[in-house]
Structure formats: structure tokens, C-alpha cells
């Protein structure tokens, strides 16, 4: 009851103060807001990079081989324009599917354009082994990933959409591209990724991609070749396989080779680590700014209001009243900035970290001001002010 009265009393002062200092308060909010957004984003990115690094570490690089196209561009061009080569591709496809090796396919050779003016969206054609290796997870119902290994009907290609499409599509929606027709089967969990050291130096995120089964009915020579040259093999005895299978493939197709990828994957790991370190540094700097920003704000606020507070104490306010006044200001500041940041940040974990940091600093501020006002008498503060 008494507490409520004090809260209200001090709130009136705080509100008046806000009215007098609208601009500087606005500035404080903008600053807190920007710091919040930066902090949340860097936490999110660091978390997913850390997961990507973990995955890169788990990829059995020492057991991996990759199909490589050693042709000159012209040679390959000639090759795919000659439909008689389809037979060769089919044989190699068959060899790669042999039970001795585990075949991973992530073919990013396709894209589709949804509306005029929008960037084309990558459609990754992948098989179930890739889903297992990169541990790609789906929202909602568990799915039978064997579906990725079957040839799909080109008029109803099943697709799973990256998390950022969740706002625009629902399961069952039909998406018509000029040449193909896709049916939305589900959504990929946010921050899913795969690692392809030949395409990118670090993890490739799936949030803005579609994924679909690797084989589509009526695939032409170019699509079949693309599937072949986007193949990794995981095998127990890498040397034997690269000798035997590699030799056979080379005999069929002069410019195709099986090649060792441990070096590239190692490089990819180093890149991801560097990325995390850079972001970690950015993140620490941002955290420091949050803390320094809030603390210096306290220093400023208490300093510019020292005389006012001391006079309040002189005429009958207790230290508690003043601390409540300070607390009210910071509480509102934190609540409002946290809500604003929440509006732009969907990742709850990083938002919670941001709010926690704010609350810790808030507590520090209150403790510090408590000490300030309990430690000195008001005449000393008046003199100083």
C-alpha cells in the first residue's frame, strides 16, 4: 500500500522528467535498440556457426571422395549437348549408386523464379543420405525421407521450404514456375545448412532455399550430369574405391574423376572457425557497449539529477524514494527497448540473453545508486551539485 503510493509519487516526477528530456530519452532508446538488434543477431549467427563448425568436425572427411569435372568448359558443353552421352551418364550414375559406397547428393544447379522482379530461389535437389549427413530437420510432422530417393513427378514436385518462407506459404500450396510445378510438403527448421567446400567457403544456410528430391521425371542429360558432379561418396576404404571405381569412371568419361576432399573440408572448418571468432569479437564489443552504455547513462542521469535528488532528500524524501525514482526510469527504459527489439528479433534465445544482460546491468545500476545515496548525506550532494 505504502509502496504503491511511493511508486506513484516518484512516477509523477519521472514522467515530468521524461517530458523535459524527450530528445535525450529518444536517443537512449535508439541506442539501446540498435545495440539490442546487433547483439541478438550476432548471438544467433554465432550459435548457428558454432553448430556448423560442430558439423564440419563430424563430417567424415577422411572417408570422403568427390566427383570432379576436370574438363575444359568447352569440352563439357559439347558433352552435354550430345544426347548420345546419356548412356554414359546412366552407367556412371549406376556405378555411384553401388552398395559399396554411400552417395551424397546436394545439387544446387536449379532455381526457380516465383514473381517477376524477385531473385530466383535455389532449389537444392538432394537425396536422403544428404539429409542424414547434414542432419537437416523439418518442422512439424516427421517425414519419411526415403521419398527423396524416388523419382518425382515433374508436374507435382514435392518441395520443403526454408524457414523464411513460412510467412508466405502453407503446406499443400501449389507453386507454379514457368516450367515446373511444386507442391509445398513442409518446412525446414530455421538455421539448417549443409557444407559443400567446393561451392562455398563455409556453411550454406537453407533458410532461403527449397529442397526437393534429387531425381525428377524426364531429367535431361544436363540435369543428370549435374547430379553426378554434385556427388560425394563416403566409403570405408577410400584408397581402393578411388583406384577401382575412379578408374572405371575415368574410362567411361575422360574428364570425370574421383578426388580426395579432406583438404577442402579442413579449409572449410578453418573458415567457419575464423567466422565464429570474428563474430565473437563483434559480439563481445557489443556486449561491452551495452554495459558501458547503460552504466555511463546512469552516471549521466544521476549526475545531472544529483541536485534535484538531494533537494528532495532535504525536504523529506528518503533514500528509498530516490532509488525507486531511478529504478522506475531504468525499468521503463529496459522494458520498452526489450519490447522493441523483440518486435524485430524472432530468435528467443538471443533476445533472452539481451534482456538478461540488461537486467544484470540494471541491478548493478540500482546497487550503485543505492550505495551513492546511502553513503553520503544530502548536504554533501547539494554542495557537490
Amino acid at each position, binding site marked *: 500500500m505504502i509502496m504503491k503510493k511511493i511508486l506513484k509519487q516518484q512516477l509523477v516526477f519521472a514522467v515530468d522528467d521524461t517530458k*523535459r528530456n524527450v530528445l535525450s530519452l529518444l536517443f537512449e532508446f535508439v541506442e539501446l535498440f540498435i545495440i539490442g538488434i546487433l547483439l541478438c543477431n550476432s548471438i544467433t549467427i554465432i550459435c548457428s556457426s558454432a553448430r556448423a563448425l560442430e558439423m564440419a568436425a563430424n563430417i567424415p572427411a577422411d572417408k570422403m571422395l568427390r566427383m570432379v569435372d576436370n574438363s575444359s568448359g568447352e569440352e563439357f558443353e559439347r558433352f552435354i549437348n550430345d544426347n548420345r552421352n546419356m548412356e554414359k551418364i546412366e552407367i556412371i550414375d549406376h556405378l555411384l549408386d553401388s552398395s559399396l559406397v554411400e552417395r551424397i547428393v546436394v545439387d544446387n544447379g536449379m532455381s526457380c523464379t516465383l514473381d517477376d522482379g524477385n531473385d530466383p530461389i535455389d532449389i537444392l535437389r538432394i537425396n536422403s543420405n544428404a539429409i542424414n549427413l547434414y542432419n537437416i530437420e523439418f518442422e512439424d510432422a516427421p517425414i519419411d525421407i526415403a521419398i527423396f530417393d524416388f523419382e518425382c513427378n515433374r508436374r507435382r514436385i514435392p518441395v520443403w521450404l526454408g524457414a523464411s518462407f513460412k510467412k508466405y506459404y502453407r503446406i499443400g500450396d501449389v507453386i507454379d514456375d514457368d516450367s515446373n510445378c511444386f507442391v509445398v510438403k513442409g518446412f525446414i527448421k530455421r538455421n539448417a545448412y549443409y557444407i559443400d567446400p567446393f561451392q562455398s567457403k563455409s556453411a550454406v544456410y537453407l533458410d532461403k532455399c527449397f529442397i526437393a528430391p534429387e531425381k525428377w521425371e524426364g531429367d535431361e542429360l544436363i540435369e543428370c550430369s549435374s547430379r553426378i558432379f554434385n556427388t560425394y561418396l563416403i566409403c570405408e576404404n577410400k584408397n581402393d574405391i578411388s583406384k577401382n571405381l575412379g578408374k572405371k569412371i575415368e574410362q567411361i568419361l575422360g574428364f570425370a574423376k574421383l578426388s580426395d576432399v579432406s583438404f577442402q573440408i579442413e579449409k572449410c572448418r578453418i573458415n567457419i572457425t575464423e567466422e565464429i571468432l570474428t563474430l565473437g569479437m563483434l559480439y563481445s564489443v557489443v556486449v561491452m557497449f551495452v554495459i558501458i552504455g547503460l552504466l555511463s547513462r546512469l552516471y549521466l542521469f544521476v549526475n545531472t539529477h544529483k*541536485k534535484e535528488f538531494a533537494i528532495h532528500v532535504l525536504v*523529506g524524501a528518503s533514500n528509498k524514494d530516490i532509488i525507486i525514482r531511478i529504478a522506475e526510469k531504468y525499468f521503463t527504459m529496459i522494458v520498452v527497448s526489450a519490447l522493441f527489439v523483440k518486435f524485430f528479433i524472432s530468435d528467443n534465445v538471443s533476445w533472452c540473453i539481451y534482456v538478461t544482460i540488461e537486467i544484470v546491468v540494471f541491478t548493478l545500476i540500482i546497487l550503485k545508486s543505492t550505495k551513492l545515496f546511502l553513503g553520503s548525506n544530502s548536504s554533501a550532494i547539494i554542495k557537490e551539485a
Partner: protein
Amino acid sequence: MIKLNNIRKTYINGSDTLVVFENLCLTVEDGEMVAITGRSGCGKTTLLNIMGLIDSPESGAYFLNGNNVTALSEKEKANKRNKEIGFVVQDYALIDYYRVIDNVALPLVYSDVGRKEREERALKALELLGIEDKQKCFPPMLSGGQKQRVSIARAIINNPRILLADEPTGALDKKTGMAVIHYLRKINEIYKTTVVIVTHNQELANMCNRSIIFEETLKLRDKK
């Protein structure tokens, strides 16, 4: 009534201990108007701060209006400052960004008086000090004498039984200073408020009905 018994006050600065006063005894009766004089740095402000409950003695007992207030909690002291004591200081202690009337009414906020009554009473206090026309102004727009009158209005708004003034004329010219003392006398006469004034100015001290001189020996010499 103010009754100080064997008050000792020290300031500790690192390893140095400065004894401001020791075994200080002083009684101010209800309705008295007392001047305290003494050279600068002898402890007048410290004494007034102890009387005003914004500083506490190291030992000794302080009776304010018959109650021992030496060991009161911070909150109880705040309440006594609010209701039983009015404070006037040399540099006025006004909040520049509050209107004059809000400055004057401030103690009433902590007495839980409603906004309307606060403004009415503040206006009355300003009238008594003859500056009701400045109620909507902000302190920086006022002259020194006017500011000091505002601060006196604030000091008396809650009808305290004791008014403490620390060099109230220190920053004013002689004529304005006299006017301020005149108002303090008026308050002492009308409301029978006990007034304790710390001053450098012997002329002002002589206008009070009792004058106390702080001496080197840390003893008080009382002249009735």
C-alpha cells in the same frame, strides 16, 4: 525545542581524523530566534546539518521537540525533516527546471498532500514572502533575493516548528540580506517558529534575540 547533549562529530579523511566538535551541548527553546556565528570552517554547517537530521553525530544525544532522534531510521529521519524542520541554505537549493510553485510545494509531496491543496498552500506561502507573482516562473529567472524568499517559502510550507538557515544572506547584498532576515523574523513572530540562523554577519546576528559564537576551543559562548 532542540536539545543537543555531548555531541561529538568527526570527519575521517584517510588516516586523519578531524574532530569538529566534542562534548557539545546546546539547547534552543521553542520560539527562539538564535544566531550562530564563528569563523569559517569551525563547524557551523556541520552543526546545522546535525540539527536538520541530514548528518548524524558520532556520539551524544539529540532531542528534537522532546523526542530522542539520535537513533532514528533513515526513513523516520526523512519524515521528521519533512514535517518538523524547514531548511534554508546559502545557495537556495532550488531545482531550476521546476516552476517556483512546484519548488515550494515539493515538501508536501512527501507529506502526501493532493496536488490542488499543494498549490493552494504554496501560493499562500509565496504570498507571505511577497513573491506570489513569480509562481509560474523558473528559478533562473529570479534575482538572488527572490530565490532566497522562494526557498524560505518552501521551508515553511509544511508549518515546521523549527527553521534552520545556513548563511541565508551569504550570497546577497546587504539590503536584500536584511529583507531576508526581516522575513525570517516575521515567520518567527507570526508562527512562533524556532529559527536558527548561521551567519557571518554580526549585524544580522544582533537582530536575533540570542547569539551563539563558535570558538577555537570548540566551546560555545552563549550571549543571551
